[in-house]
């Protein structure tokens, strides 16, 4: 049986081309293995070989979705692969979105099996887990061995068109697909067993986890903007120069509340970004590019808005846990309401 031909997709960071400053790297096709492909290849042993690797910058892909998709698919198709693997992306948001998007497109247009991997909270996971199989990984590249350990065997199964088991068995994110099978014990016994455990305060596994919708109804529109107090909030990490509250560049554990009373323009001498997930050059040159204080001050002067709220709230969205983001916002939105703010403009990067 001939070796399974695999094409691997990775980003500029895992290809060792560069970090954020190279996130605009355009798609490149290289023969053979690059970066993490080495680990995958070792796990494949003789069964499969990575014949080519496609490398693309995360910002380039996300800012040019249609164009980048086309370019990458052409490169993949040219190698006539039997299997396509993207990532793993861990908790890198743009990378996860790119992996999901390209895996989905390759599956649809080339009709070959595809596999990717990322952390459960990666936005790419919710977007694509029902469309392509996504192996659940840890939240950083420290989990590469664990990820490859799950991705390689599953990838081979997909390529050989073998039957794929349940998500909990194979290690992919639950995708909503249900398969009927006969339980060994009848339902009444299973329910009573679960109830007894619950009453005794012991751990039990539910057979039907409740879905987490986490949607909020849109609030009513602002009636009179000329009298409204508008507040700014950002996940782009804009902070006073020196980052006095030491907000982390990734996985932020806190947010900052900053006074912009009397400030009409953010400059490179007074403010900066603390965010480690995008090239900071432009935000550091002119922080208004992420937190538009200058323009809102103009609108205030012109009477377009009643007032720009004197405080803004900032954190770094890079790899920050969803639970943390929820906690921060629950806290400071109480303050915003108490301070009479009518609406918030939230900017993100």
């Amino acid at each position, binding site marked *: 049986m001939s070796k399974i031909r695999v094409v691997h997709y990775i980003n500029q960071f895992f290809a060792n081309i560069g970090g954020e400053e190279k996130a605009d790297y355009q798609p490149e096709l290289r023969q053979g293995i690059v970066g993490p492909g080495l680990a995958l290849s070792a796990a494949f042993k003789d069964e499969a070989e990575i014949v080519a690797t496609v490398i693309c910058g995360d910002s380039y892909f996300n800012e040019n979705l249609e164009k980048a998709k086309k370019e990458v698919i052409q490169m993949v198709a040219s190698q006539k692969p039997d299997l396509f693997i993207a990532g793993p992306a861990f908790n890198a948001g743009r990378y996860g979105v790119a992996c999901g998007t390209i895996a989905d497109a390759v599956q649809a247009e080339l009709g070959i099996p595809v596999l990717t991997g990322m952390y459960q909270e990666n*936005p790419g996971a919710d977007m694509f887990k029902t469309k392509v199989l996504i192996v659940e990984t840890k939240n950083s590249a420290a989990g590469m061995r664990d990820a490859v350990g799950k991705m390689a065997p599953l990838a081979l199964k997909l390529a050989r068109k073998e039957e794929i088991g349940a998500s909990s068995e194979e290690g992919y994110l639950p995708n909503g697909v249900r398969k009927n099978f006969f339980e060994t014990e009848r339902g009444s016994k299973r329910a009573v067993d679960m109830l007894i455990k619950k009453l005794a305060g012991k751990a039990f596994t539910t057979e039907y986890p409740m879905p987490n919708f986490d949607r909020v109804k849109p609030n009513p529109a602002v009636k009179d903007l000329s009298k409204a107090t508008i507040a700014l909030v950002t996940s782009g990490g804009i902070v006073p120069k020196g980052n006095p509250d030491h907000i982390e560049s990734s996985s932020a554990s806190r947010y900052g509340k900053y006074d912009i009373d009397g400030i009409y323009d953010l400059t490179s001498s007074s403010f900066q970004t603390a965010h480690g997930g995008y090239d900071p050059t432009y935000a550091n040159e002119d922080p208004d590019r992420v937190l538009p204080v200058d323009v809102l001050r103009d609108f205030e002067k012109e009477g377009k808005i009643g007032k720009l709220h004197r405080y803004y709230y900032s954190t770094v969205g890079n790899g920050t846990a969803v639970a943390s983001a929820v906690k921060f916002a629950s806290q400071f939105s109480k303050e915003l309401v108490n301070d009479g703010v009518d609406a918030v403009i939230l900017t993100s990067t």
Partner: protein
Amino acid sequence: MCTVTPISLTVGANRIVPTVAIPHPLGNPALTHEEEKTLRRHLVEKALKALQTEVTEQTIFE
């Protein structure tokens, strides 16, 4: 206001305004400072318009 609007939709934002690019959502270093300010005004105006618009579901204000 954000560049990768599919992410805003996934996390449940209701009023979404697409912006320029990930490292400079409300700016464009290829333009002059004046042109950038005009661009920024235009985008923030869209955001203000979105705040004044009744919506019943997630809406992207192009």
